[in-house]
C-alpha cells in the first residue's frame, strides 16, 4: 500500500490524517501541490474516490451527448423522408452515438464505479498506483473531448463504430473525422490499459487480511474479469488503429483491396477486440446487480462460486466468439460452424448467472427499492436481449439478420436493458455511500418506469423492423416502400421514435432527482439498506483514508457477519448495529495515516497526448511540442516519490490551516 504508517503510540490519541504540509521538492523537479481546497483538490488529486466521481461525471456528460445524438437519429427516422439530418450528417451521428456510448459512457462509468468501490470493497485505502489512476482519468477525458472536437473541425467520423475498411479510407471518408476518431480512441485506450493494470494489481495485491479471492464481493470479481479482458483486448485494437492511421496518413495500403490487401484483416482485429469489449460493457453491471439483489432480498447471493466462475468463463469464452460478427463475410463453413457453436456455448455461463439471480430472489424478503427495480429490470430485459443473441449464433438465420434493425434491437436490449439499467441500479444503491444523501425513491420509481417503458417502446419494435428487412444505417425511409398493416415500417419507426422521447424523460427525471437530492435530500443513515459488504463499513461519504483501521476479513459478506450471528436454532440474529461495527474500527484506529500525495504530473502527461495527436493531424511542430510535454511529464513523474517524504508531514500545530486534519472517535 502506498501509505506510510507510523508506529502507533501506546496512549490513545486522536487519529490524524494530514496532507503534506511542506511543498518540498526533495526529489521532484517542482514542488508538489499541497492545497486541499477549491479546484486544485480535484485537478491534482490522486484519491480513488475523487477520481471515481470525476469518471462518473465525465461519463454522465457523454451519456447526455450520446443521448442527444440518439434522439436526432430517431427524429430523423420518425417520419418518411426525414429532413432533420442529411445523409452525411446522419452517418456521423450514428458513428458518434455508438462511439460515445461505448467508449465514453459505459466504459468510464464502470471505471468510475470500479475506482470508487474496489478499494472500499477489498478493504484498501487506495489503488496500487494512485498517480496512474489520475492519469487514466485525464487521458480518458482528453481522449473523449478530442474525438468530439472533430464536430467543429470539418465533421466527425462517419464509418460506424466498427469503422470497416475500405469505408474508413481517405477516399470514402475524406474529412479528418476518422483521424480524430482513431487518435482519440488510442488516447482512451491508453487510459483503459493503465486503468486495467492498476485495478488488477489492486485487487490481487491489496486485499485486507483474510480477504481471500473467494471472499471478494461479486462486483470486485466481475471488475477483475473485465480488467483482464481490457488488458488483452485493447492492445489488439491499438494495432488496428495504428494500421488505419498509417493507411490514412502515410500511404500504407493495409486495407486497400486494389493493392492486394485483405479487408477482413480489419474485421478480425476489430472484433478480436470488439467481442471481449461487449463483455467489458456488461460484466460491471452484472457485478452491480449481484450486490444489489442479495441486499434487497435479505438473502446471500445464490451460488456465489457459480456466479464467480461463470463470470470467469465468460471472460475466457469471450475470446473465441468474435467471428460471429462476420458470418456474412464468407469465412467458410468450418469457421462459421466453430464460431456458431462457441457463441451458443457462451450463452450457458450467462444463463447460469440469470438462474442464480432469480434464485437469489426466490423466497427472499423482497424490498422493492429503486435499485432493486433496476436490477430486476436488468434480469428481464437482458434475458430478452440474450435470447435474440442466441438467434444470431444460428449462422443461416444470422446471415438473414446481418445489418438489419434486428441486430440494433438485440444489442440495445443487452446494452441498455443490461449495462445501463445495471449502472442506474448502482447509482441508487451507492448514492448514499458516495454523497451521504438518499436519492428520492418516489422520483426514482418514475425514473425507472419511464426508462423501462421508453426502452421497450424504442427497441422492441426494432425486432419487427429488422425481421421485415429494414437495414441499419439507413438515413431515410419512404412511405411507398414501407409495407402495410401490422408490418408497416412507418408505424413501428414512429413508435420507436416516441419511445426514445419517453427514454429522454426517464433520464431527465434522474437528473432532476440528483438536483433535488443535492438541494435537500434526506441525509443517509450509516447503513440504509442493511448491506453486506465492506464498502459500507465506513462513514457516508467515506473518509479520505477509507478505514480507520484495516478490517480483518473472516467471511464472504463480512459486514453482514459482523452484524448478524447464528443463534442456537440456526437463525440469524442481529448482534451489532452498523454504528457499533464502525465504532469498533474507529477505536482501533491507526494513528497518522499518510495518503498518497497529490501530483501535477498525471494531468500534464495526459495533456501531452491530445496535443501530440492534434499535431499529427495538422502540423508536425505541434506534435513535437506535444511530445516534449509527454517527455517532461514522464521525467517529472519519475523523479517524484508517490508519497511525500516524512519530513513534509509536520505534526499539526494549532492555527495552521494548511493542514487537513481529521479527528475521529
Amino acid at each position, binding site marked *: 500500500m502506498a*501509505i506510510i504508517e507510523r508506529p502507533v503510540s501506546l496512549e490513545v490519541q486522536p487519529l490524524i490524517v494530514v496532507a503534506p504540509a511542506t511543498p518540498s521538492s526533495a526529489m521532484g523537479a517542482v514542488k508538489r501541490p499541497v492545497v486541499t481546497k477549491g479546484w486544485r483538490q480535484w485537478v491534482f488529486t490522486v484519491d480513488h474516490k475523487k477520481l471515481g466521481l470525476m469518471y462518473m461525471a465525465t461519463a454522465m456528460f457523454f451519456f447526455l451527448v450520446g443521448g442527444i445524438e440518439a434522439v436526432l437519429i430517431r427524429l430523423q427516422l420518425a417520419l418518411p423522408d426525414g429532413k432533420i439530418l442529411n445523409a452525411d450528417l446522419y452517418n456521423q451521428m450514428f458513428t458518434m452515438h455508438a462511439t460515445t456510448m461505448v467508449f465514453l459512457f459505459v466504459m468510464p462509468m464502470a471505471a468510475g464505479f470500479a475506482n470508487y468501490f474496489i478499494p472500499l470493497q477489498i478493504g484498501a485505502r487506495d489503488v496500487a498506483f494512485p498517480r496512474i489512476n489520475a*492519469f487514466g482519468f485525464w487521458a480518458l477525458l482528453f481522449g473523449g473531448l478530442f474525438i468530439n472536437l472533430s464536430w467543429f473541425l470539418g465533421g466527425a467520423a462517419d464509418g460506424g463504430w466498427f469503422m470497416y475498411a475500405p469505408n474508413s479510407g481517405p477516399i470514402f471518408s475524406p474529412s479528418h473525422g476518422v483521424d480524430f476518431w482513431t487518435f482519440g480512441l488510442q488516447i482512451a485506450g491508453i487510459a483503459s490499459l493503465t486503468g486495467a493494470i492498476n485495478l488488477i494489481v489492486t485487487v490481487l*495485491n491489496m486485499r485486507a487480511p483474510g*480477504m481471500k479471492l473467494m471472499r471478494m464481493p461479486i462486483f470486485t470479481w466481475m471488475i477483475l474479469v473485465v480488467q483482464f479482458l481490457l*488488458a488483452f483486448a485493447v492492445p489488439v485494437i491499438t494495432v488496428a488503429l495504428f494500421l488505419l492511421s498509417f493507411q490514412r496518413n502515410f500511404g*500504407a495500403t493495409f486495407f486497400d483491396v486494389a493493392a492486394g*490487401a485483405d479487408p477482413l*484483416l480489419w474485421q478480425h482485429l476489430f472484433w478480436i477486440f470488439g467481442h471481449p469489449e461487449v463483455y467489458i460493457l456488461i460484466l460491471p453491471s452484472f457485478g452491480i446487480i449481484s450486490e444489489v439483489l442479495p441486499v434487497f432480498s435479505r438473502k446471500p447471493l445464490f451460488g456465489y462460486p457459480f456466479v464467480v466462475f461463470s463470470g470467469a468463463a465468460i471472460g475466457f469464452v469471450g475470446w473465441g466468439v468474435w467471428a460471429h460478427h462476420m458470418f456474412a463475410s464468407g469465412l467458410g463453413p468450418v469457421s462459421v460452424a466453430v464460431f456458431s457453436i462457441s457463441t451458443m456455448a457462451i450463452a450457458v455461463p450467462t444463463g447460469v448467472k440469470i438462474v442464480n439471480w432469480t434464485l437469489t430472489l426466490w423466497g427472499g424478503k423482497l424490498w422493492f427499492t429503486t435499485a432493486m427495480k433496476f436490477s430486476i429490470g436488468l434480469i428481464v430485459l437482458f434475458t430478452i436481449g440474450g435470447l435474440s443473441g442466441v438467434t444470431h449464433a444460428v449462422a443461416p438465420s444470422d446471415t438473414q439478420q446481418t445489418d438489419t434493425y434486428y441486430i440494433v434491437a438485440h444489442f440495445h436490449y443487452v446494452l441498455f436493458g443490461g449495462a445501463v439499467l445495471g449502472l442506474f441500479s448502482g447509482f441508487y444503491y451507492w448514492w448514499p455511500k458516495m454523497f451521504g444523501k438518499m436519492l428520492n425513491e418516489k422520483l426514482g420509481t418514475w425514473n425507472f418506469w419511464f426508462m423501462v417503458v421508453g426502452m421497450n417502446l424504442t427497441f422492441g419494435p426494432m425486432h419487427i423492423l429488422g425481421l421485415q428487412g429494414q437495414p441499419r444505417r439507413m438515413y431515410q425511409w419512404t412511405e411507398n416502400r414501407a409495407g402495410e398493416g401490422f408490418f408497416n415500417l412507418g408505424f413501428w419507426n414512429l413508435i420507436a421514435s416516441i419511445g426514445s422521447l419517453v427514454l429522454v424523460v426517464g433520464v431527465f427525471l434522474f437528473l432532476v432527482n440528483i438536483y433535488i437530492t443535492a438541494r435537500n435530500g434526506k441525509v443517509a443513515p450509516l447503513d440504509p439498506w442493511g448491506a453486506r459488504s465492506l464498502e459500507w463499513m465506513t462513514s457516508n461519504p467515506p473518509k479520505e483514508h477509507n478505514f480507520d483501521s484495516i478490517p480483518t476479513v473472516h467471511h464472504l459478506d463480512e459486514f453482514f457477519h459482523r452484524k448478524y450471528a447464528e443463534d442456537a436454532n440456526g437463525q440469524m440474529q442481529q448482534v451489532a448495529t452498523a454504528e457499533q461495527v464502525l465504532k469498533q474500527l474507529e477505536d482501533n484506529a491507526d494513528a497518522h495515516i499518510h495518503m498518497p500525495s497529490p501530483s501535477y504530473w498525471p494531468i500534464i502527461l495526459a495533456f501531452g497526448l491530445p496535443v501530440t495527436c492534434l499535431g499529427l493531424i495538422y502540423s508536425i511542430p505541434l506534435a513535437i511540442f506535444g511530445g516534449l510535454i509527454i517527455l517532461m511529464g514522464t521525467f517529472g513523474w*519519475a523523479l517524484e516519490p*508517490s508519497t511525500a517524504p516524512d519530513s513534509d508531514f509536520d505534526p499539526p500545530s494549532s492555527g495552521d490551516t494548511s493542514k487537513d486534519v481529521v479527528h475521529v472517535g
Partner: protein
Amino acid sequence: MWFTLDNLATAHDTHEGAAHSSTGLSNVKLGMWLFLGTECLLFGGLISTYMLYRGRVGTGPRPSQVFDIPFTSVSSFVLLMSSLTMVLAVSAAHKRDDRSTNLWLVITALLGTTFVGGQVYEFTAFYNEGMGFSTSLFSSSFFVLTGFHGVHVTVGIIMLLALRGMLKNNKVPGSRSETVEMIGLYWHFVDIVWIIIFTLIYLIPA
C-alpha cells in the same frame, strides 16, 4: 511506448507495500508483468499482420532480394548480448554495487544503440534498393513491425540512461534494485520479441 517509460515512474509508487501484498509480489513487479502481457498482444497483432502480408510484394522487391541475413544476425547477436549485460546490471544492483550497476547499464544501452543503429542502416539500405514504406503490403507491414520493435528498444535505451543518471545523482525514489530489475524485465521482453521477429521475418522463407 512512452507508457513503458512510465513504468519507470511506477516503480516507486508503492515500494513500501511489497512486504504485505496479498500475492507476495510487489505491486510494481505485478504491474510490470501485466504490462508485458499486454505487449504480447500488441506484438501478436503486428506479427499476424506481417505474416498475412509477407508474400504480397506487388511490384516491389521480394524479401530475399533485400534482406542481408549475416548483417542482421550480427545485430541480433548484439541485442542478445545486451540481455546478458542487463542481467549483470540487475545482479550488481542487488549487491548494492553502484559502480558496476552504472557500468553495466551504460554498456547495455550502448549495445542497444548499436542494434538500433543497425536497424537505421538497414532501413536506409532497403529504401535505397526501392523498398519504401508504402511500396507494397510486405514493405509496410515489415516496417511497421520492425519499427515498433525499434521504438521499444529506443524507449528502453532512454530508460537505461535516465536510470543511470538518476542513480548517479541519488534521485531514484524507492527501491533502487527493484527499479533496475523492472527495466531489466522490460529489456528482456524486448529482446525475446526480437528473437521471434527475427525468426519469422529473416529465417523462415516467405
